[in-house]
């Protein structure tokens, strides 16, 4: 009697489509990825239904729950010149290496007195300093934030003019934690208003329309 033959199926699968898809996705994510730069401070922004995107050319002031203020301006050329101005105003001399460090950084929350030390420090030390700092001072006695804003605005307008573009393209964004006191944010806004900036972009998370 002949034995019943169990057809032997080939267990090898054709994986080509899966691999194709995997690489397609890899390519997609690689091209769309914008890397999260290290943040000196983490804030949890409130949500709104606004779907306006953050503009490209922006000066951003971050306020955390403790009322500490961090300053950031995107354009690297502007950053360099702003630091030059700050150095001249507060009589701190920065080395070329420190300036480069500053240009490549994002948020700074150091009083100018500690800025040189911060720029010279290594990564671990910087994280420690970011935790310990009280942010950029912005009270009426020692208003360094005012200078940062003023210089940022002036330098940006200058560079725009040199390139033959319209000056007032810089947008002013305020990023603050949900739990920050509004009075603190208002105080920061008042510093902006001293420089005649009255329109702000508040950074929010997107929330679905209910």
């Amino acid at each position, binding site marked *: 009697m002949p034995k019943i033959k169990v057809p*032997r199926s*080939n*267990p*090898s699968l054709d*994986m080509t489509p*899966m*691999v194709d898809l*995997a*690489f397609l*996705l*890899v390519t997609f*994510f*690689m091209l*769309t*990825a*914008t*890397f*999260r730069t290290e943040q000196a401070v983490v804030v949890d*922004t*409130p949500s*709104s*239904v*606004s*779907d*306006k*995107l*953050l*503009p490209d050319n922006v000066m951003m002031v971050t*306020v955390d729950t403790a009322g500490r203020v961090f300053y950031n301006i995107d354009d690297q050329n502007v950053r360099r010149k702003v630091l030059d101005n700050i150095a001249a105003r507060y009589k701190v001399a920065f080395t070329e290496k420190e300036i480069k460090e500053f240009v490549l950084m994002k948020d700074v929350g150091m009083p100018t007195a500690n800025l040189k030390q911060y720029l010279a420090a290594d990564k671990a030390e910087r994280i420690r300093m970011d935790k310990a700092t009280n942010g950029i001072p912005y009270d009426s006695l020692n208003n360094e934030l005012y200078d940062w804003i003023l210089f940022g605005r002036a330098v940006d307008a200058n560079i725009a003019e040199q390139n033959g573009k319209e000056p007032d393209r810089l947008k002013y*964004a305020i*990023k*603050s*934690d*949900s*739990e*920050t*006191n*509004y*009075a*603190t*944010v*208002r105080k920061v*806004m008042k510093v902006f*208003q001293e420089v005649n900036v*009255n*329109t*702000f*972009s*508040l*950074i*929010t*998370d*997107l929330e679905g*329309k*209910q």
Partner: protein
Amino acid sequence: MAELNTGEGGGGKHQKKRAKKSSTKVDMTPMVDLAFLLLTFFVLTATFGKPKTMDINMPVDPKDDKNKTKVEDQTAMTLLLTDKKGVIYFYYGVMKADTRLDSTTYASNGLRKILLDKNKKVITQMNDLRAKREKRTIADSTYKQTEQKVKGDRDALYVIVKTNDKTKYKSVVDVMDELNICEVDKKAVIDMSPLDKAALKKINN
């Protein structure tokens, strides 16, 4: 793992000499591993898009009283934001000794319902205008002009948001958001006056 070679290696009976056929199949396992590793990495690190923003105009402190905006008694609505979670106090017109504070919530049947009702005229006009733009019966520039006209109308709701020292940033953003949804363009955020604070004290005792 990508290719399992089966059915081979059984004790061959025919010991004929043949040119060895090398397999054309390449083991793809390491490549696939790498692809998925990269995929996982990029998926996890990806930050989608840019953050969203909400524009806000702050009133400039006028140098003299002449430049101050006078608020029409009937259309003005004042919202008082305190540190009390989820509660908004409000009143209409100018604060007087006998003004009674009402309270509402941030829920969609709270503040939004009131605003939608009070600002009905502007909202219907804006909806018409949007519909017209969708159908392309009006130009974008006309749309913008009309939008300004409608929102800045004398009868449009005027909302004053007042805060105290303890108001959270989130409350202000939430309220501004509601105002944007309800097409309220005439709005301002200012500090509470002593009268407002007194009224709040009265209601909380």
